[in-house]
Structures are given as structure tokens and as C-alpha cells.
């Protein structure tokens, strides 16, 4: 496809109203998903820093304030706890706020509101108070950023009952999943793989309406087989799915068949999908950017060891971040689960 053709299709995507399949970036797919959700439900509103005329620092909310007004796309004060805390109040008043946290490392001022209030309000009220708040968090590294702009705090939120934690890996999923998150009556942490914001792929803009209310949504988001294989299962999510797929392509040339599972949800985790795959392949490597220590991979390794003990040909291995702060940009390629480290783990489990 020529550059000109891509550009024309992107412009079509900007309209946001047309159906059919379009080639979109992941960021644009979220933008269209937000637009679709706002059109569907007048109670849906967006809140965050710089999301209005600027369209967010990643332009994910580009054009939305212009079309929906400043009451529905709200430029908030620079106060993360305030953003989430007032979103809770708005949800109690019947609204469906979608908060944008500008970067992963800046979510911590809101951590108290998210974990002690948002996550527990339904439980505390024995179901009388629903708080359908979505918190969008650009997360992960690989963009050469400064400190606090490349973190992967998803396990901290997955560890808190009452929250759903999901993350898309593809533009098509991003378009659907953001709409599912907004339709969900539970609070949802929506982690956006910022290194993949500019990745382009086909997005089916017609299927979404059915999927928003389809099986597994807006409740549990199921895992998908991103690539079938027979020798090793690679379980990944968010930005690491692309890395896992690249590793699978590279391994194929060496005669190893890798199945890639895109988890899509970190709370709950679709253990059944991983276990099904492991029962066929006998080997599992989990890949994520977050530190492996007490990360999502640790939970998966433990659960699969418990459920698939007699099917495993090798110990479950994890490839992820080290137990250090996210390093300086000049070193992040060594910190991130790159192709070499993933293939090294694949080789290790194959040697058993």
C-alpha cells in the first residue's frame, strides 16, 4: 500500500462515523472507540490533563472536545487524585467518566482513590453503588522517555480486587476493548501500550457494536491465540505481544513452532486459555515488561504449575523487567524483554 493510500484511509478514519474495515494506528483506534462510546451514551465523559484542545499528549482524544464540548471532554486541574476522586462522584451521580492519566508513573497520586475507594465502593455498599469509571493509562517503555514515563504498574492494580485490568495489543482490539471497558459496570484500568500507539493494522469498525455486548464483555475479557503453534506457548499482553510474535516468526525459521497467547486481561487472567495451550505444547514462557518479581507472570507460572503439572515438559520461565526502577533510556533495550531474551528462554525450555 502506498503512503498516499494510507494517508487517505487515515483521513476516512478521522470521520469516525463510517463502518467497514480501516487501517488505523492503535492510538487512532482508541480515539474512534471513545468517539463511538460517547455517541452511544450521553453519560460517557472524558476527564484528564491536556485532553481538550491539545487532544492529550499522545493525541488519543484528538478532536473530541471540539465535537462533544468541554462539559463532556474536561480539561482538569493537574491533580491525579482529584481526577479519579471526582470521577467517582460523577459515577455515583450516574455518569460514566473515562479518566486519562497522562503517564504510567504519574498514577500514584491517584493510587489511594483507585484502590481504597474506586475498587471497593461496590463491595462496601453491597452492590448499591456502582462506579463504572475507566482509567486510561499509557504504559510501558521503548520510547526513549525520561524517568516516570515508561513504567508498567499493572500488577499493583491487578492485585486489588474490585478492579478489572485490561490491555489491548492491536488496533482492532483497542477499538473494541475501550468500548467494552466503558460499557462495563465495574471500574476498569485500561492500560494502553504507548510504544504501540503508532502501530497500524486493520480495524473492523462494524463488529464492535456487537462485541461491546457480546460474550465475555463487558465482563471477563478472554485471551486470544495470536498465533497458533505446537512446541512452546508464549503468553504475553500489551506491548509484549508484538515482541512475542516476532520471536515466534524468528523461531519458526529454526524449526520451533511457538503459540502466542494474547492475554488481553490481567485481572482476571484467562488461565483456561493458557492451560489449554500448555496442555498441547507442554512448555510455557511468559513475557511482560513489568518486573518479573511478583508480576503477572509469577501468578501465571504458579497457576499453570498447579493445573498442568503432568503436562509440563519444562519449568515455566518468565522474561520481563528486572527488580530495579525502570532504567535510563540508553539502557532500556536491555531491560525490556527483547527478541534475544525471549528466544533464549524458548531455547531453554526446549532443551528439557
Amino acid at each position, binding site marked *: 500500500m502506498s503512503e498516499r493510500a494510507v494517508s487517505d484511509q487515515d483521513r476516512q478514519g478521522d470521520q469516525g462515523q463510517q463502518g467497514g474495515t480501516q487501517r488505523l494506528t492503535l492510538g487512532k483506534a482508541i480515539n474512534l472507540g471513545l468517539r463511538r462510546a460517547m455517541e452511544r451514551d450521553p453519560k460517557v465523559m472524558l476527564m484528564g490533563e491536556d485532553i481538550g484542545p491539545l487532544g492529550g499528549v499522545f493525541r488519543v482524544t484528538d478532536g473530541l472536545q471540539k465535537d462533544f464540548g468541554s462539559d463532556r471532554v474536561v480539561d482538569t486541574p493537574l*491533580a491525579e487524585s482529584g481526577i479519579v476522586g471526582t470521577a467517582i462522584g460523577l459515577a455515583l*451521580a450516574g455518569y460514566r467518566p473515562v479518566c486519562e492519566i497522562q503517564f504510567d508513573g504519574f498514577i500514584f497520586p491517584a493510587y489511594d482513590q483507585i484502590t481504597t475507594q474506586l475498587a471497593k465502593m461496590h463491595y462496601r455498599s453491597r452492590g448499591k453503588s456502582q462506579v463504572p469509571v475507566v482509567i486510561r493509562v499509557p504504559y510501558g517503555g521503548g520510547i526513549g522517555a525520561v524517568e516516570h514515563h515508561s513504567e508498567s504498574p499493572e500488577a499493583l492494580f491487578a492485585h486489588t480486587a474490585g478492579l478489572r485490568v485490561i490491555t489491548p495489543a492491536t488496533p482492532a482490539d483497542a477499538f473494541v476493548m475501550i468500548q467494552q471497558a466503558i460499557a462495563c459496570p465495574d471500574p476498569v484500568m485500561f492500560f494502553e501500550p504507548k510504544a504501540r500507539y503508532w502501530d497500524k493494522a486493520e480495524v473492523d469498525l462494524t463488529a464492535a457494536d456487537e462485541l461491546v455486548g457480546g460474550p465475555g464483555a463487558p465482563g*471477563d475479557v478472554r485471551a486470544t491465540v495470536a498465533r497458533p503453534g505446537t512446541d512452546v506457548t508464549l503468553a504475553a499482553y500489551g506491548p509484549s505481544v508484538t515482541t512475542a510474535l516476532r520471536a515466534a516468526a524468528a523461531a519458526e525459521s529454526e524449526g520451533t513452532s511457538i503459540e502466542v497467547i494474547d492475554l488481553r486481561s490481567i485481572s482476571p487472567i*484467562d488461565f483456561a486459555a493458557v492451560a489449554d495451550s500448555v496442555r498441547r505444547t507442554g512448555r510455557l514462557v511468559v513475557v511482560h515488561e513489568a518486573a518479573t518479581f511478583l508480576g503477572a507472570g509469577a501468578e501465571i507460572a504458579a497457576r499453570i504449575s498447579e493445573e498442568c503439572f503432568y503436562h509440563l515438559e519444562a519449568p515455566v520461565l518468565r522474561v520481563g523487567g528486572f527488580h530495579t526502577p525502570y532504567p535510563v533510556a540508553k539502557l532500556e533495550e536491555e531491560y525490556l524483554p527483547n527478541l534475544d531474551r525471549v528466544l533464549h528462554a524458548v531455547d531453554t525450555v526446549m532443551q528439557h
Partner: protein
Amino acid sequence: MFTPDVDGVTTPVGETDDDLIQLLTPTGERVHHESYSPRVDHLDRAALEGLYRDMYLVRRFDSEATSLQRHGELGLWPPSLGQEAAQIGSGRAMSSRDYAFPSYRELGVIWTRGVDLRSTLHIFRGEDHGGWDPNAHNCHLYTLVIGSHALHATGYAMGIQRDGDVGTGDPGRDRAAVAYFGDGATAQGDVSEALTFASVNDAPVVFFCQNNQWAISEPTQRQSRVPLYHRGRGFGVPSVRVDGNDVLACHAVTSEALERAKAGGGPTFIEAVTYRMGAHTTSDDPTRYRSRAEEETWRRRDPLDRMRLLLEREGSPSEFFAGLEAEAEQFGAEIREYCHTIAAPPVERIFDDVYATEQSQITRERTWLTEYLAGFEEVAS
């Protein structure tokens, strides 16, 4: 800085009594205030007796609950003794359409919202985290994390704006939210963020701060270098300081703040100067950090005593007081009896309502525990 005043009670330097809105003195005499007196002029003797009854029964409930904790029937209790006027005065200024966001010591507030006070026993007996249906009473649940709910009230008020229920001039439609918190909460970032959000949005919310002088063992001087009601001004929020032991003044200033909020005039910060006469909770020992003299000073400012003096001055018969005492006796007996009926919930409750929709990990763990416990029953049979 703060210095002791003539009664030995600390008062911020630069403050004078002129700053304090008071409509009823500790000796039960009315004080005229040009702006605020007209806001309580419509209260006839029956209405004043009603306010006194509110405070009297709430105090009775509070003392009964404190006793129940001492008898081991409750795990904990946060006494509201001394703060009845602040809570009843402000609470009775709200309409049924307004929405209250209480902290965890607002027994009087939730009483004015029509919540069955016995619901609170469920919380402190360890049977429930909440206790009542917030939407049935337009009264949110107690919030234990200090100051968090100031933001919830502000967000709720932003929802009221978006619903178009502000500034219409229709008293049946316009509404507002009220956030209740203490002096210690003013040091929390969330309260400052709530003031910012409320201010820039002109949100119809009233911040009602009960300065009861003590955040557990820390006096107000450890929370602020300025009088608390000055806090609002820095955020562009009109602020007022009121005698929190004067039910009429609390009613008047809250009434004015609600009126402004509902008309589209934005938020108000109210500092109600009161005193927590009891402990922070039943686990606390205030003798370690405050003097008998201080407690005695405030006892002379008891909010119920001054209201009784006013009622007697304005002709309430002794039968009214005797009848109320009998009503409170019966109320106390009912509370004791009810408390004993609160049993532990079924174990499945652990898993109920974590999510609004089914969540597979919860389902899995619920199934596991159910089967595990059933195994014991099979063994027993």
C-alpha cells in the same frame, strides 16, 4: 501561631470573636446577626424543639453505642458527643434532594437524612462495611480514608451541574452536595484538590469542616498555621467560621451556602468550631494528650445545654423535656436489644458484590471455599 484565650482554649492569633457566626450563646441567649438571624426566624417553638429532639436522641444513641462497645458488643465506636449541633444544624438545612457525603463520625448528619442509626452498629459490630442504601437517603456511606470523599462530593456536584439541576430557580429541582470532614482532613491533599476542582468548576458543593480541635491526639495547630476557614479563600471559595455548638448558627450558615450553591454561585467552605468531648474512638485515651481544664471549658459550651436554656426561656413546658427523656429511654433499650440480634453474615458474603458483573477468579475462589466447607459437613455426618 496560636495562643490560649482567657478560658485556656487555644484560638488562632489574629482571630476575634467577630469572625465567629453565633446566634445562640452558651447561656441560651439569642444573638442578632444581620445576615444570618433572618435565616432562622421562621423556626417556631415546635421547630426548635425538633432540633433539640434531634440532638438529644442522637446523643442518646451515641452514648448507648459507646456503652455497647465497652460491653464488648461492638469492636469500635467513634463518639460524636459534643458535635450534635454542627451535624443537626447543617443536616437540617439540606433538602431531601441534596446529597450528603459524611465522614465516619456523622451520626447526626445521617439521622437528618433519615438513615436508621442502627445501621451504624452493623459497621462497628463487623457485619457490614456500609450499612445503608446511599441512594435511598441521598446520603453516601461513611468514608474512613480521611478526606477522600471531599472529592466524591465535588464530583457528584459536577454531575448535578451536568444534569442541569443548578441555577434553575426551581427549588424542586436545584440541588447540591455537602462534604463533611474534620480539622485533620484539611491537611490531606484530597481536600485541597477538592477545593480546586470545586472552585474552577463552580460546583454546587458545601465543604462542612467540623473543627473538633483534635485529630486523634494532634491539635489543630499541628494541622494548620492559619485558621481553617482561611483555607477556602486561597482557592477562591467563600469561607465562613461558625460556632459549631450553636445549632441555629450552623443551620443558618449552611442554609446560606446551599442557597448559593443551588443558584449557581459555586462552593462554600464552612468551619464549624466545635469540640469532640469524647475520645477519638473507644480505642483512644484522650487523657494522654489534653487537660481536664480544657474539657471542662468546652463542657460549659455544650450544644444541648444552651438549646435547652433557650427552649425554657421561650416557654417549652416541662412535659416536653420529660416526654423526650422517656422517648430516649425507650430508644436506648431498643438499640441494646437490636445490637444483640446482629449476627455474622453467611460466609459466602466474602465473595458477594466484589464486582457488579461475574468475575471468573472470584467465582473460582467462591466455588473452592464452598466445596471445602461442604467437605467438613460430610465428615460430620
